[in-house]
């Protein structure tokens, strides 16, 4: 589909960006953030000992 209409062209790229963000970018970022958070907590546990060291 070689659309020559610049209107059509920019509409297409808008939908494409939207899909990329929803399907790939944000899900991947979410997993990275959650994973990174888990990783940081794990590293803190290595330094300060396993959770529950209140006694």
């Amino acid at each position, binding site marked *: 589909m070689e659309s020559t209409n610049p209107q059509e062209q920019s509409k297409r*790229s808008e939908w494409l960006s939207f899909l990329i963000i929803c399907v790939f970018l944000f899900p991947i970022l979410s997993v990275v953030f959650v994973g990174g958070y888990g990783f940081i*907590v794990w590293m803190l546990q290595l330094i300060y000992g*396993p959770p529950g*060291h209140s006694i």
Partner: protein
Amino acid sequence: MLSKLKALWRTMTRPAKHISLGVLTLGGFLAGVIFWGGFNTALEASNTEEFCIGCHEMRDNVYVELQQTVHWSNHSGVRATCPDCHVPHNWTDKIARKMQASKELWGTIFGTIDTREKFLAKRLELATHEWDRLSANGSLECKNCHEYASMDWDAMSEVARTQMEQAAERDQSCIDCHKGIAHELPESMAAASGALAGLQRQATSRFNPGQQYFSIRQLPLFTDSALSQEAGILNSGSVITVVAQQGDALQVEIDGWRKTKGFGRVINEEFGQNIREVTLEKEVATDDSMIQGFEVQEDPLTGLPWQRVSFQLWMGKDDLVDDREILWQEASELYVKNCSTCHSQPEEAHFDTNTWPGMWAGMLSFVNLDGDTQELVLKYLQKHSSDYSDGHH
């Protein structure tokens, strides 16, 4: 390629011209719902036993061993699965544990435990990680299913009741006493059960009034000669003096010191030293007709007043010896055997009497000793601490 990415970026960072705000929001909302569902499904799927035993390292070793235990099949039909005991329920700790599993992935790729021999060689190290974790959280995962408050002491054997009731009072971590509950123990670990059986064979059967005897393990004390009204627990390795005998019961006198703070339930062997001899029930400890009080002295280190007390109670005739040296000899062997696995055991006289309990409690999660043995060895260490040895102080 680069220009395409640039164009994409431009589109992403500008307001949409063709798609309405409503459609964008709806799309984002739906994607969020689907993502959250998928994320939790994946998290849950990785929290099943099937997932864990997907790796042969887990399946061939620990999983097979679990099948021999009470957590695999029991009267109640409740099955404990791997994640029940190994994966924290709290969200943050669960995510951290999932990340920690990258170490397991690494281990699988590089075959750290891909044969039975390698697994057995590494078992002490792996088990120590789990003990450390359970010790820090007070065996939280066990307590998700088991609760001290819901235990029916009367339904338990005397040994279980005596030890568990004491443990419940201190909210002690289950793993201090119940190692190897789900898998075999590392080879270097001495068996806990039966550690004191040798001593029990040397127990005295003849008792003379006026003579001193020493407890092998923690023993219940009673207010009556029928041994029906429980008054407290005599600690392992403690001294009693026989006053009289009646059938299967002994009337005994116990002398000691207690802090005059609170109910005074804990009776210690000597002034100023936290060497536990008896833990009394509250009603008995506060009953002046039962407990005879004498002089009060202030402990110069803590400023707390201590009072000398004496009282008479009843107990059974089992598990007493007439020579304390027999107990110390066994305790000393147990100490060396259990505490030299990871580092050479500290000299008994390296710490003073009141420092030992803290040191001891910190190491309990690493050794496989039952409660009676823990108390006996602790008492041995306290009675041979720097306060009692000639070389120190």
